[in-house]
Structure formats: C-alpha cells, structure tokens
C-alpha cells in the first residue's frame, strides 16, 4: 500500500522537482562564478541574502509594498480603461476606423516619453506616476481586447437576443467568458510590463519604492543591495503568478473537453 501511494504521488512530485533542481543549479553556477571573480561587482548569493537582511532593517518591505501598490493601481486602471477602449474598437467597425490610428500611435510611443511628459505636465506627484504607467499599458490591453471583440460569436449573440437576456446577463454569461482568454493574455503581458515601467517611474520621480532604492544603490555602486531588491521583486511577481493568475486561468478553462 505504501508503495502504491508513493507511485501515485510520484508524478506530482516530479513536477516540482525539476524547476527546483534547475534553480539550485543556477544558484550554484552563480556562486562559483562569483567566487572565481571575487569582486563586489558580482556578489555571491550569500552576500545578497546578507544585503536583504540589512535592507530589511531599513524599510525593505515598505519599499516593496509601495511599488506593489503603484503596480496594482496602474494595472487596475490600465486593464479597465484598456478593455473598454479595446472592446469599443473590436465591436464597432466605425469606431475602429476612426481610432485605430490613434492606437498605433500610442502603441509606439516610448514609455520614457510618456513618463517624462506626465512628470512635466502634472508635476512629480503620485497621480502623475501612476497615470504614466497606466498610459503606457492601456494601448497593449486595448489592442489585445480589440481582437477579443472581433472574435465574439455572432451565433451566441443572436441566441442571447432571441431569449431576451439582459445586458448584464449577456455580459456575464455570453461576452465575458469569450473574452477570458484575451483578458488572461492582457493581464499576463500587462503585469510584466507594468512592473518594469513602475521602476522607471520611481527612479525618475519618486522618493520611495524599489525603483528609487535601485537608483540609490546604483549611485553607491552597491550591487548586493540592487540584487537584494531584484530578488524580492521576482519573488512577489512569482507569488502573484502562482496564487492569482494560474488558478484563475485554470478555472476559466474548466469547461473545455
């Protein structure tokens, strides 16, 4: 019985083992190279952990939280505004013709330009920072959701009309489930992009957050501290991925054969 149990558990365990082995191998490689070079420019993993401990005493989690807060706000704004714009473009051909040029323009506007303009126009404020990040992300969300709007099933729309579904019921049961894969793509790409832009925004015009701390430690050439913040950052993104995005996607896919 114990043997059978072990065998049953093996595949699940194997799924976990390989990423862990691969990660350990990476850290070992890093440790070996760092030991060979022996310079503060490439600290060892142990030195980075030590840096995390010293930074914790100086508000490490506060800075992470600040960044996380900005990411959440910018992400929420970008997803809602971007989806609304994208769906309007995808579901209405006249709107698409009128504004698809604008979308292309904003898609190709460099992030740095938006950030600088926001700070120049609105001052070095929190609102300007979050707006700059959101404006960078909105065109991507809109472009993705526009495809979703175009792909909506006309047969199901007719069915919903025939059975007199309310606007709310149509959205909830007919439209949004069809858009779920597009939301997932927009959310995943969005999160990655928003994280990175938030750091730039913090670097240029904020006095807290991970981006600000990276800037500070860059001036001091403290690579161990820079890697310490990068590490915390990666861990937070991974947690969001595993705890939020993956379960949600799994749930949205459950009806498939």
């Amino acid at each position, binding site marked *: 019985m114990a043997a059978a149990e072990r065998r049953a558990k093996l595949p699940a365990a194997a799924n976990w083992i390989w990423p862990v082995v691969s990660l350990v191998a990476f850290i070992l490689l890093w440790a070996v190279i760092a030991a060979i070079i022996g310079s503060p420019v490439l600290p060892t993993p142990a030195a980075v952990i030590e840096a995390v401990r010293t930074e914790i005493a100086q508000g490490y989690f506060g800075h992470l939280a600040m960044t996380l807060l900005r990411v959440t706000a910018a992400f929420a704004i970008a997803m809602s505004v971007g989806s609304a714009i994208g769906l309007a473009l995808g579901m209405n051909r006249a709107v698409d013709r009128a504004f698809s040029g604008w979308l292309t323009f904003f898609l190709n506007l460099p992030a740095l330009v938006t950030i600088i303009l926001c700070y120049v126009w609105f001052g070095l404020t929190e609102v300007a920072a979050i707006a700059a990040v959101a404006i960078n992300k909105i065109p991507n969300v809109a472009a993705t959701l526009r495809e979703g709007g175009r792909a909506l099933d006309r*047969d*199901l729309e*007719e*069915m919903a*009309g*025939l*059975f*007199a*579904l*309310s606007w709310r*019921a149509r959205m909830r*049961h*007919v439209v949004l*489930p069809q858009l779920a894969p597009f939301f997932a793509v927009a959310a995943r790409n969005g999160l990655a992009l928003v994280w990175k832009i938030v750091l730039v925004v913090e670097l240029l015009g904020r006095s807290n957050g991970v981006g600000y701390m990276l800037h500070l430690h860059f001036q001091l050439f403290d690579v161990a501290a820079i890697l310490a913040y990068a590490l915390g950052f990666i861990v937070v993104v991974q947690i969001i991925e595993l705890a939020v995005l993956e379960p949600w996607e799994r749930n*949205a896919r459950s*009806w*498939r*054969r």
Partner: protein
Amino acid sequence: MKDHDDEDAALSAHVRRKAFGSAEILHDVALQIGHGERVAMLGPSGCGKSTLLAILAGIDRDFDGSLTRDRGRLAMVFQSPRLLPWRTLTQNIALLPDVADGARARAALAEVGLADHADAYPQMVSLGQQRRAALARALAIDPKIILLDEPLVSLDPRRVRAMLDLIRRVFDTHEAAALIATHDRREALALADRLIELGGRPATLVSERRSPLSRQERCDPCAVEEVYQAWFGSEADTGTDKGAGANPGPSHGDADG
C-alpha cells in the same frame, strides 16, 4: 387582405423582399401560423429557410415586408445548438430571464431525457444530446410559438426516430404553435399539420398543403410513407426529391457523435 386572420394567427409574416447585397434570397413569401398549429417548411438545403426563420424570429430585421406576432414568447431551436460551452446544461437554461431557476431548468432537461447530464458541459455530450438540451431550453420559457431549424439533421437514423418521438411528445404537452424547417419531406409529414414548400431563386412559396394525417396517424411510419408516395412519389422517381428521404441529408460542419 386578411386583417381578421392576422389577429387570429400566432405569427403572420409577409416578406416582400430579402436580399444579402445584390443577391435576392426571398421574394414575396407570405406565411401564417395559427395558435397551436404545426407547420413544416420544406425546401432544399440553402434555399433560404434559415434566412426566413431568422426574420420570423425577429433576429434579422433587415427586410422589406411585415411581421406580426401574437403576444407571448417565441423560442427557437437553432440548427447548431448554440449552447454556451462554458455553462453546464442546467446553467444554460437557468440563466434565461424567463426561467431564472435551477429547478425549472432541471425539470426541462428531465423532460427531454437529459436528467443524468444536467451538470455536464455541452462539449461533454453528443450532438443529439446538445440538440435535446436546446429543445429543453426553448420549452423552458413556455413559448407561444417555437421555431425549429432542421432539428433532425446530422443525427444517425436511430437517433432521428427518438428525436422525432421526443419532438411530437413535447408538442403535445406544450400546446405551442410550431414551425419546423426541414429539407426532408417524410420528416415534415411525421411532424406537421400543414406543409409549405420554398423553392426557386430567389425563393418563393411554391406549394402549401394540409396534411391528411391526424396527429395520431402521423406517428406511424407506414402512414407517413403512404402519403409521401402519393404526394412526392413521382417526383422522387424523376430525381427532383433527391436525398429527401433516402439519405439522412447533407452533412453539416457541426456534425459529430
């Protein structure tokens, strides 16, 4: 000319012209269905039956002519079942504003023999079962008139028989008027009080006959065959009725097990 009749009819329509671009599909088709009456609309595949059904259902309003419908709900069973793949069969029915109740949805599914599949997703059941679920959905809103688009197409012969019996049974219990679009004349005789036939290009009404068979008599395949031979026998020999009874009909893209 028939104002009086119009008021008595469950549905009354006169399509003077329906075209897609420059291609005229329907020309001068007048149709009335009395309360509780069962009418079969015959015609070769692709002649415009589905177009006419969409007009009668109020889905397609882009036509020249008039459409009056008695107060009371209209339901439709589409040729492809048009169930929401991300909702279970029960949810598919319960989300209609006129049902809004899981117990009623389950009762409707039980009526068409799907009690065991009530919590399955559409993709997990066969096409025949999806059709039955679509029929249950139509019946669940307690319609005054129900439109069926090729309800038996792409089912294997054994299932055709079962579906025929089921449709007759639910017609008897729910006293709704019905319009059944089909290319199969035997099927039409087995189901309807009156047969109308569309033909030509653009399609017009080429014939209209009352079935000599009572609702009881048409359950008997031999009686149906007799009328079929008397009405269409010679035509079938010359090949104009090719495929109407001999083969199950052209296969459609949505066909599966």
